[in-house]
């Protein structure tokens, strides 16, 4: 379980995360939602210890260090692979550094997405790069897979394929924390939704809870964010110079 206690992070005095308290048990698929700049990426980077922060982040009761960091993997839209290396070279690199590397899963996903093994990554299309980034994160053998807008730039068919594959291959011990703006698309396969706004955790709800209340995820998010549907209309009126 990942436990986050009173996590705060600020950049040059500007608060990016405020007193986040959160638990991520094993075996969940969790969606992380929020507007741009809400703190989704910062939260993930703090969990991975990439950023100095205040508060505590524990993995099964221990701080996250080089001893247990291999239990976390990360797929980011910024990409964390080596552009000059081939997929094969990445496979070798991961296999030699991560003892629990899942070679069969890697091979299977590479074949499924028809990605070339012997071509340098810089020659891949954006969609292929995203796919490969996620393949690496899923194949590392991590218990917690953090994905930061991994499908940015992929077409809808591609994304749907991925969601299906994801649901099919995940082991019960694997947890996914998925940050995305594609709320409707992922609402069918996440089990829990976290909502960040201006660095604060403003919503934490399970899909089962939403089902009980008969509310859909988009509705819940709009309600939690106090979204004003008339905002666009009013803005357009003002811009086009209409007077009441």
């Amino acid at each position, binding site marked *: 379980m990942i436990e986050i206690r009173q996590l705060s992070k600020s950049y040059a005095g500007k608060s990016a995360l405020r007193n986040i308290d959160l638990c991520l048990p094993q075996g969940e698929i969790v969606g992380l939602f929020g507007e741009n700049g809400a703190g989704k990426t910062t939260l993930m980077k703090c969990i991975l210890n990439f950023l100095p922060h205040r508060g505590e982040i524990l993995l099964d009761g221990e701080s996250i260090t080089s001893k247990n*960091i291999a239990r976390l993997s*990360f797929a980011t839209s*910024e*990409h964390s*692979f080596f552009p*000059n290396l081939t997929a094969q070279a990445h496979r070798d690199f991961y296999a030699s550094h991560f003892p629990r590397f899942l070679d069969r899963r890697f091979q299977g996903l590479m074949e499924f997405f028809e990605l070339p093994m012997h071509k340098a990554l*810089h020659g891949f299309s954006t969609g292929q790069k995203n796919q490969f980034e996620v393949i690496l994160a899923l194949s590392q053998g991590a218990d917690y897979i953090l994905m930061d807008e991994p499908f940015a730039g992929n077409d809808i068919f591609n994304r749907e394929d991925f969601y299906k594959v994801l649901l099919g291959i995940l082991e019960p011990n694997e947890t996914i924390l998925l940050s995305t703006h594609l709320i409707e698309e992922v609402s069918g396969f996440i089990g829990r939704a976290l909502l960040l706004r201006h660095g604060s955790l403003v919503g934490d709800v399970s899909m089962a809870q939403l089902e009980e209340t008969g509310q859909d995820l988009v509705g819940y998010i709009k309600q939690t964010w106090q979204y004003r549907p008339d905002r666009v209309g009013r803005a357009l009126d003002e811009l086009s110079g209409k007077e009441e």
Partner: protein
Amino acid sequence: MRKSEFLSRHTPPGADLHPQWRVLSMGGVVSWLYSLGFIFRFADAWSQLYSYDRVSGKRVLQEGVIMPDFIQLLDNALLGFGLLAIVMIGFCIFYYTYHRQGSRSIYLMRRLPDRWELHRRCLSLPLLTATLCIAAAALLLLLYYGIYCLATPESCLRPGQWQMIWGIRS
């Protein structure tokens, strides 16, 4: 360990090593050529120890003449190797920034169970190269000092030459 295996483990994955080889090979040659300045200064000073006897047609060692100090003749002949070693600091920075170019492979390197992996890959080759530069400078220092001591007539040598290199006054 074979050279290719060493390089694959001690350099950033996929990094182009050609710039470093180019700087090392060209810088090494230029530094060595520049160090030859000592030989020219030494040969000039050495020839001034002698006068030419027109009668016998031989060179004759002048009386009471003293060879300039080794450190004076050496001057900054080994400076090139020092500069080359300093340039390697730039390569360390280049290798670290490499992990932020084109992608953010720094995120992968910082997630590795071996927390020294990133530093080993960014620092090993530049540090090894810097060490080679310093070793080359030390070897040339010994060689030139040997030439100075062996080729200079003993009567023209001021004592304490070796100590003078390190700034120790006898």
